[in-house]
Every structure is written in structure tokens, then in C-alpha cells.
């Protein structure tokens, strides 16, 4: 028996080691400011779907955590990466709540159900859920109006394009994406009436290979400025390689495509997180859904790339100033859908509720969204 038993034992040990190694990939970073040691620090935990180094969504949230740590007094923050959706997320959140964290920030829509479940068990702990839409007494869904940055992206793209065809790499036909596509197309049309937006739906949030192919397809189809809803830098790299231009989202993608990159929305969560912490401390916290305008600073445009001319800068800057001042209503009528049906009449506009449920795209968008 001994030989067989020994071999079996070794096998089990090696397999266990492999699994432990594999599971050990979620890392933790924690930092404390030791001011007023008399009072217990306010503890904030951030849960990330991806890795901090993604140079996109998670990276920007991590920047927000770092800002909060540096700018709020007597706080202790922790960021946990690569937390899988579902049971894992619930486990991590429960553990954090038991460890005495005061505020738990779940930075993905996919955590919504887990957040609501865990929040019920810990009524004294505050929860925030990024891009979610359901609130509870201690759960606050929050997001910024990303479509405003896509409107400005559209203005930049509409000014830059020579072929009058813009490409858009879309992820899924959900309202949050459709808002952005529409804002992009409307923004481009506002400066260039002849412009059309071709959409390719890749059915993924990130798959650099698929995104690259989608980008190449759009460029082959005549598009000379690319926008993307997906998370990788592949569209920018494809644009750079093919000598066309690109606009981004989430974070500054200039480093990937120094010649191609025009501009793009960059999340700036830090001041918002610091505000929320202050509100909770002062007892003024309201868990109603938060959907902040760009003018609050939650979302900024990346510094212009080299391909943006001074004339373009003037127009985009002016548009942004008008948008911030409330002089531009992006979804003001008349707006028609792809079939030519009037969806928004002249003189009216879309309400926030209608925007949250939007399922049609404006008439200068080409492509089947499959929704």
C-alpha cells in the first residue's frame, strides 16, 4: 500500500499547492493615517472586480481610495482586488463588516445583489455600489454621468474626422452603453451634420483580441475616429497602428496611442468619496441613488492629445463650459431613432428615468445593437 499511498499523498499535496497559489492572487493593500489616536479611525473598504493595474475602471477607483486616504482625516482604507462576483463577494463583504469597517464600497454593478444581501445583515455599516440602481437604507448606488464625457468625445471626433464615419466598439446593449452611444453621436452631429457612427457590438467588457478585431473592422469600414465602451486599450493601439484617431473612457489612454489619442473621460472618484465620508460622519448621509454631473468634477476630460488642433480645443472647451453651465441639454428633441420614428419631440427632453431605461439609438448611428 505504501507506494500507492505515498503517490496519492504527493498528488494531493501538489494539487492543493496549485489551488492555493491560484487562489492567492487577490492581494490586499491597507494604509492607515495615525492622527488623532484617541478616536477610532473611520474604516473604508473598497472591493474591486479587476486588478488595480488595469489602467481603467479599477485603477481609477484605486486612485479615489488613495485620494481619500491622503485627504480625509483619521481614516483607514483598504482595497481588495479581483473579488469574484457572487459568493466570494458576499464572503469578503461580510468579513469586512465583521472586522468593523464603517463603509464598504463595491465598485461594480455585478456586486449589487451581494451588496444588498450583506447590507441587510449589517444595518450599522454603510454600503455603496458603483453603477447600481437599487438603494436601501444603508446602500447607496452611485455613478457619474458618463454620457456627458461621451458627448464631448463626440464633439472632438466630429471635428477630427475626415471620412465623416466614426467607429464605436460597444460592449452590451444595456441602457448605460446606449446612453453613451447616443451622446457620442449627438455630440458629433452638433459640430458635423454629415457624420455617422458605426457600431460594432463585441459582447464582452474586455477581450483585447476581439476589441482589436472590432477596431480593425471599423477602420476597414471607413471609420477614422474610434470610441469604445470596452475596457482595454486595444482600440487605441489599433487606431495608432492604422494611423487613425481614438477617444477613450475611464482613464487617460494617451500612453498607448500618443499620435491617435484625442481625449476621453477620466474618472475622479476621490473628492466624491471624501465628501461621502464627511456626510456620514456628520450624519447627513442620504442613500438615494447618486448620478453626478461632470460639472461636480467626478469625471474629467483627459488632457488633449497631440492630434487635437488649437481650433478644436477652442470648440471643445467652449462646449464643455456650456455643458457645465447647463446651457446644453444633450437629449433635447427632436430626436429620431434608427427607423426614423420621432422619440423625443422638439421642445422636450429625456428624463433621468427614461435615460436609465433607454433602448434605442439616434438616427445617425448605423449598426444592429441586438437589443
Amino acid at each position, binding site marked *: 500500500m505504501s507506494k500507492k499511498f505515498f*503517490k*496519492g499523498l*504527493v*498528488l494531493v499535496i*501538489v*494539487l492543493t499547492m*496549485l*489551488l492555493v*497559489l*491560484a*487562489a*492567492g*492572487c487577490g*492581494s490586499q493593500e491597507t494604509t492607515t493615517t495615525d492622527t488623532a489616536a484617541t478616536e477610532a479611525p473611520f474604516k473604508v473598504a473598497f472591493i474591486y472586480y*479587476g*486588478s*488595480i*493595474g*488595469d*489602467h*481603467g475602471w479599477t*485603477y481609477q477607483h484605486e486612485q479615489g481610495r488613495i485620494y481619500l486616504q491622503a485627504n480625509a482625516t483619521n481614516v483607514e482604507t483598504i482595497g481588495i*482586488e*479581483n473579488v469574484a462576483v457572487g459568493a466570494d463577494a458576499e464572503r469578503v463583504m461580510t468579513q469586512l463588516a465583521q472586522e468593523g469597517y464603517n463603509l464598504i464600497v463595491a465598485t461594480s454593478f455585478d456586486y449589487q445583489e451581494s451588496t444588498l444581501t450583506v447590507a441587510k445583515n449589517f444595518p450599522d455599516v454603510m454600503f455603496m455600489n458603483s453603477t447600481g440602481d437599487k438603494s436601501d437604507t444603508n446602500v447607496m448606488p452611485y455613478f457619474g454621468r458618463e454620457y456627458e464625457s461621451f458627448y464631448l468625445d463626440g464633439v472632438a471626433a466630429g471635428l477630427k474626422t475626415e471620412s465623416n464615419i466614426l*467607429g464605436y466598439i460597444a460592449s452590451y446593449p444595456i441602457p448605460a452603453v446606449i446612453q453613451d452611444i447616443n451622446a457620442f453621436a449627438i455630440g458629433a452631429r452638433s459640430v458635423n451634420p454629415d457624420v455617422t457612427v*458605426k*457600431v*460594432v*457590438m*463585441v*459582447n*464582452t467588457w*474586455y*477581450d*483585447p*483580441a*476581439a*476589441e*482589436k*478585431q*472590432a477596431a*480593425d*473592422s*471599423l477602420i*476597414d*469600414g471607413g*471609420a477614422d475616429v474610434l470610441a469604445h465602451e470596452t475596457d*482595454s*486599450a*486595444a482600440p487605441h*493601439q489599433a487606431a495608432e*497602428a492604422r494611423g487613425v484617431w481614438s477617444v477613450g473612457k475611464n482613464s487617460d489612454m494617451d*500612453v*498607448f496611442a500618443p499620435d491617435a489619442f484625442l481625449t476621453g473621460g477620466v474618472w475622479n472618484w476621490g473628492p466624491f468619496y471624501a465628501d461621502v465620508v464627511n456626510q456620514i460622519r456628520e450624519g447627513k448621509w442620504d442613500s438615494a441613488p447618486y448620478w453626478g454631473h461632470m460639472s461636480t468634477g467626478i469625471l474629467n476630460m483627459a488632457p488633449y492629445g497631440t492630434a487635437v488642433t488649437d481650433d478644436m480645443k477652442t470648440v471643445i472647451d467652449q462646449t464643455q463650459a456650456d455643458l457645465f453651465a447647463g446651457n446644453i441639454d444633450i437629449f433635447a428633441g427632436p430626436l429620431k431613432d434608427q427607423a426614423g420614428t420621432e422619440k423625443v419631440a422638439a421642445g422636450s427632453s429625456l428624463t433621468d428615468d427614461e435615460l436609465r431605461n433607454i433602448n434605442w439609438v439616434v438616427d445617425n448611428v*448605423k*449598426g*444592429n*445593437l*441586438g437589443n
Partner: protein
Amino acid sequence: MTYTLFIAILAGGIAAGSSILLASLGEILSEKVGVLNLGLEGIMLIGAVSGFVFTIITNNSWIGILMAIVLSAVAGLIFAVLTISLHGNQIVCGLAMVIFGTGVSTLIGNPYVGTPVPQSFDAVAIPLLSKIPVLGPVIFNQDVLTYIALILVFVVWYFLFRTKPGLHLRSVGESPGTADALGINVTLTRYIYVIIGSALVGLGGAQLSLAFTKVWIENMAAGRGWVAVAIVVFAGWNPQKALLGAVLFGIVQALGFRLQVIGISFPPDFINMLPYFLPIVVLCIEAAKTHRKKAAGPEALGVPYIRESR
């Protein structure tokens, strides 16, 4: 459909299919010697991340490729120890390799996510040959790793079916007991080709991160390893048919996005399904044709060889 669009789809399809092709070739070697390696997805990720990271560290993409081959061979060695020496269940160990490869590549690659790679493999047009109409721009204007993949199709085929070591390899996969009796070292043979096979799989991963997308993102293989496993079976363990399957996958994917651009009013979900569907249909038809002639799979596939229990 215009000529340039046609060319773009075919060329894009080959470039997109070459990582899957390399992985399929590696799996063919492994399965032909009787070891079912389901860990392709994980090993591809190990190859992709090590190629990428070492290219950044050394500023030399060839060293990156070398390390991708070496480290995925090490992954193959781990798998070989588990399945060949310890007689572990190949399916379970393969699944463990997927989890291991995904985890370890995420861990290693974490600081490099989104970093631009300093040196990569761009398309290189081969003089003269690339001037041939249709074939030239489609086949002779690819990245170096794709050329290697295309050449390896014939190298692997020739080796398997026309050389003595290839015959030994196949005999170990068909009937290890007989091979053993004939004096072939079954354990050693299996080790060699499982490791070489893994190295090819890792090379496919490196093609993905260094030539095709030029970025590292965790889990970037996005199911390509599993597609390769399926292609090997449907291709009847034949390298040329694996080439057909892999390229078809790439072409249909490239075609799908272009159909969307042209504005074919088809649900994109359906078009995006085609790359997974069509190669299987085509290879099923192929398999049905060859099935009449001979049974396809290696006889001893998935069966550990234990001399004393013969």
C-alpha cells in the same frame, strides 16, 4: 464584397487564428502520445504573461518568446509529473492547470496590466511572395509567430506521420503496453511530448499578447484554450485540419465584426456565436468523412500507463 475587404477578412482571420492553431498543435502532440491536457487555457495564459513580462523587463521580444516557451514547458512538466509519474486523473489535473495558470498569470502579470510593450511582433511582408495576388497579402504579410505556426503545421504532420520518433510517439498513444514491450520508454516519451506540446501552447499565448493584441490583461485567452481543445478533437488529431479549424474560427470572427460594420441587419449575438459554431460544423463533417476510414482518437488517450498493472 470588395477585394480589399475580402483580403482584410482572410488576413485578419489567420492572424486571429494563429494563437489557437499553435495551442491545437501542442495539444495534438500531447494527445497523440496519450495524455489529455485540458489545461490549455491556463498554459496559454502562462505563455502570454511570461512572454509579455520578459519582453518588458529585457526590452527584447525574442527573449520574451523564449521565456514563454520555457515557462509553459515548466507548466507542462508539472502536468506531466502529476499525470504520468503520479498517474493522476488527467481531466482533474487539466482543470487544476487551468485554475493554476489563470491564477499564477494574474499574479505575475498584475503590475503589467495595461503597460505598453516596448517591442512586439508586427506584420512582416515577405519580399516577392507577398506580391502574389490574394495569397500574398493573406498569408505572406503576417507576424513572425504566425509564420512559425503555419510552418509548424507541416513540421508536426511530417514528424507524426513520416518519421520514426513520430511513429514511436503514436504507438505510445495507441498502445503503451506494446510500445513498452518493443523497448520504447513510455514514460520518457510521454514526458517529452507533453512538455513540447505545452511549450507550443505557451507560444500560442505569447502570440496573443506580443503579436496580436500587444497588451497583457488578466484572463486574456478568453476561452481560446478551450476552443483549441475542441478543434483538436473535431480535427481528428490531424494538424492540417486543426489549421482549417483555427483559421476558420479567426476568419468567422473577423467576418462577424465586419458584417456588423457593413450593416447587415442580423442580431450581433448570432454573428458572435458563429466563430464557435461554424468550425465545429465543418470539422464534424470532416470527422464524419474520415470516420468511415479509421477510428480517430489515440486508443490510450487519457489512460495512465502503469507497467505493473498491465
